[in-house]
């Protein structure tokens, strides 16, 4: 399946130098370099927002670098396109499986390179089916019914189809992006032995993951990204998960986080034995008035789903939620909002703020009733409120009528929070509040979060930026594979300790062969 590939270790399959990339006001990459040797498994790690996905998207030809050079197999290719990347033999195993749900496995595998019945323009469906079954069985021991559609497959099976599709192209570089996030142990092991086999066949592999135990077990070298730049590239046998972890974390915190006075009151939010099979199990905790509680966990830990359940976006199967002193059952976000909850979602542009509505419209969208008299909007009152919030939060905008599209990520996030300030919410759920936000705005947002608590709200922050979490919260809950495995008092712990629990690297080390 592979073409002629130079011997392992000789030269670089990929050499990115000094990559710089801006998005509006934010700097995603600030001079990152990535040098991957031929025929090795090269790990790429970093926290959310460190620049991993941007770097990969640049490699995939989806973004163009503002500065920096890209060398593939010795050749300069500073402007990549998806087509060119594929021609150069770079293939990606993404998290969003790019497989058409209503296609059969055979069709999905051969889309774009469909075999024809010789001498005719017609699809050779039988050949597609046969070859597909053969390859899947030979390499993966996977047997699927001929008529199986992609939509009927499990996540692991889809991933295998995706990998097979890439392999059919004879790739030189395979990039795996968080491949084990939705896999069970057994499936992950199959993946690992496959990756080793591919490496032995001479394919270069870039492996992105948060599970440091896997990086330790699988990779030859690892590059650690932090704040858009590579801080180290190490040979895995010369280092450890713990060392990698501590390199991932921002040290230079200094005065970034406001001093916190730990005066907390009665619980504004209590959760008992909340469970949703397959997502999270038996979760119990509470958030007091004026308290900032952090929640963290890797993809698949259930933290995200938990937050969604608290806002009424999904329903837990069992357990109890008590908000503002009374037990509640949220069927939809409007129920949660009525009970004074607020959510600042991770996908800001999709769910947090409307890019094509103005600052004013975004800010008051949850609190319109305050500015309504007999059905009509009190525009003057609205204006006053928005101006006050813009001032208080220091939102940089050309005016209250500017569309959110024209604001930087950080300022958009401030508006996303301002919306709930206008509503006088009492319980704030913040999902990755500073992702995609420039450093300056980050500090302001931290101050803002502290302010929320100081005014008596209860705040729950979900974040995978552990330095941030330790810096701004009073307590931290760590979820691993659906359960709360540890609760820390923030002032008495460190990001490394939290990371160790979150990655289960202690556990991980035991299981990965």
């Amino acid at each position, binding site marked *: 399946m592979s073409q002629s590939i130079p011997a392992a270790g000789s030269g670089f399959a990929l050499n990115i130098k000094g990559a710089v990339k801006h998005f509006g006001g934010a700097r995603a990459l600030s001079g990152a370099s990535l040098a991957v040797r031929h025929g090795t498994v090269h790990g790429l790690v970093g926290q959310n927002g460190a620049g991993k996905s941007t770097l990969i998207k640049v490699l995939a030809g989806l973004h163009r670098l503002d500065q920096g050079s890209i060398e593939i197999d010795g050749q300069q290719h500073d402007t990549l396109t*998806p*087509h060119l990347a*594929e021609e150069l033999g770079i293939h990606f195993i993404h998290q*969003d499986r*790019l*497989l*058409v*749900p*209503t*296609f059969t496995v055979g*069709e999905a595998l051969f*889309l*774009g390179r*469909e075999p*024809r019945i010789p001498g005719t*323009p*017609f*699809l050779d*469906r039988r050949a597609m089916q046969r070859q597909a079954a053969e390859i899947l069985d030979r390499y993966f021991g996977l047997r699927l019914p001929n008529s199986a*559609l992609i*939509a*009927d*497959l*499990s*996540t692991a099976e889809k991933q295998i189809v995706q990998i097979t599709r890439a392999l059919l192209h004879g790739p030189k570089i395979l990039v795996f992006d968080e491949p084990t996030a939705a896999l069970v142990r057994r499936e992950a092991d199959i993946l690992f032995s496959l990756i080793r086999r591919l490496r032995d066949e001479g394919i270069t592999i870039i492996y992105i993951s948060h599970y440091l135990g896997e990086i330790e077990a699988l990779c030859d070298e690892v590059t650690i990204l932090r704040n858009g730049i590579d801080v180290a590239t190490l040979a895995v046998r010369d280092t450890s998960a713990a060392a990698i972890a501590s390199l991932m974390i921002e040290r230079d915190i200094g005065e970034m986080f406001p001093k916190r006075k730990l005066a907390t009151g009665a619980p504004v939010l209590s959760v008992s034995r909340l469970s949703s099979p397959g997502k999270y199990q038996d979760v119990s905790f509470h958030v007091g008035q004026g308290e900032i509680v952090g929640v963290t966990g890797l993809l698949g830990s259930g933290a995200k789903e938990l937050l*969604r359940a608290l806002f009424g*976006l999904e329903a837990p199967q069992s357990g109890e939620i008590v908000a503002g002193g009374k037990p509640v059952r949220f069927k939809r976000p409007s129920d949660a909002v009525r009970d004074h909850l607020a959510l600042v*979602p*991770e*996908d800001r542009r*999709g*769910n947090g703020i409307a890019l*094509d509505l103005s600052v004013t419209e975004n800010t008051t969208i949850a609190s319109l009733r305050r500015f309504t008299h007999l059905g009509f909007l009190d525009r003057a009152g609205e204006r006053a409120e928005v101006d006050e919030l813009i001032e208080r939060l220091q939102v940089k905008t050309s005016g209250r009528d500017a569309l959110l599209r024209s604001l930087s990520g950080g300022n958009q996030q401030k508006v996303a929070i301002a919306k709930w300030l206008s509503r006088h919410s009492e319980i704030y759920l913040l999902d990755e509040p500073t992702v995609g936000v420039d450093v300056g705005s980050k500090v302001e947002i931290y101050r803002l979060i502290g302010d929320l608590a100081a005014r008596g709200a209860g705040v729950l922050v979900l974040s995978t930026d552990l330095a941030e979490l330790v810096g701004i919260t009073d307590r931290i809950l760590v979820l691993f594979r659906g359960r709360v495995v540890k609760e820390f008092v923030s002032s008495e712990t460190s990001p490394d300790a939290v990371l160790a629990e979150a990655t289960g690297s202690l556990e991980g080390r035991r299981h990965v062969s």
Partner: protein
Amino acid sequence: MSVNALFTSTFDTDSETPPAKRRNWGGQAAAIALRGGSFIAFAAILLYFSITAPFFFTIGNIGNVLGQSAILGVLAIGLTVVIIAGGSNVVTGGIDLSVAANMGLSAAVYATVIQLGYGDGLAVLAAISTGALIGAVNAFAVVIVGVVPLLATLAVMNVVAGLELVLTQNTVVPAATDFLSFLSAAGPFGLPVLAYVLLVFTAIATAVVQFTPMGLRLYATGEFPDAARAAGLPVKGLIAGSFLASGFCAGLAGILSVSYLSGSTTGAGDMLLPVVVTALLGTVFSRRLVPTIIGTLLSALLVGFLVNGFQLLNISSTLVNGVQGLLIILVVSATTLLRRQEN
């Protein structure tokens, strides 16, 4: 303002909701019920009519239905290609509202060419070219200018309908040639030639759309444009081609219509909504619940048999509209509720 929302359900709004990963058993059962149910319903209708309506189950009558369904069938199949390439239920929402007006104009062109004294050969060329040209305009508007298909084809439809009126002055343009008579006459085994035309056309369309790589790529483009692009497919070209195809089909339908009605008549636009509903309903006849050529054919025949049965039973055939409307709502409700249950 997002016109894209026109095709999305009120509830398909969450960018954080992951797509359903595995069809649960309830969903599977419902899907099978939907598909199996449609075939059963079709058979039941045929059965009912053959019992209650005189002459229903005769070769002559069935041939009649096939012939009468030819125009609707050809149009709906052309529209199906657009729906396949544009996506039947997601953001892009491929649709071509100009097919009926296109047919009307093509028919008018054909009849006019004949009237002017030229032969069938030129007339056929003219009609097909008209259809294809309109398809090209649609393709241009959607792919190059970037107007949403719904609105682009709506505007084109208006213009084309107007042009037809200008050409015919809102009158019937009679046309009778040997070729046309041949088309609307009876053929071998007592089946009308039009029936054969429908069957042959369907066979060719099926071969291209369901059995060639290009057909597969059309499906990929409509179902999952990102995956199609990732596979290096020329998405824009495929979408443009689909509009050309539907334009071509409309031209062909125009010729058939001239033959069937012995000229070009007004009121072609009335066919639009029946064609749209026919194409959309066709999905229930496919195993994967996607638009298919055969599915559309069956859907067209279902309508044909309904109209025919109603006629034989002396029920107003305009009730067929209501049946179609009900069917659309039932089918889409079922699929929408299915999807909601999965998420």
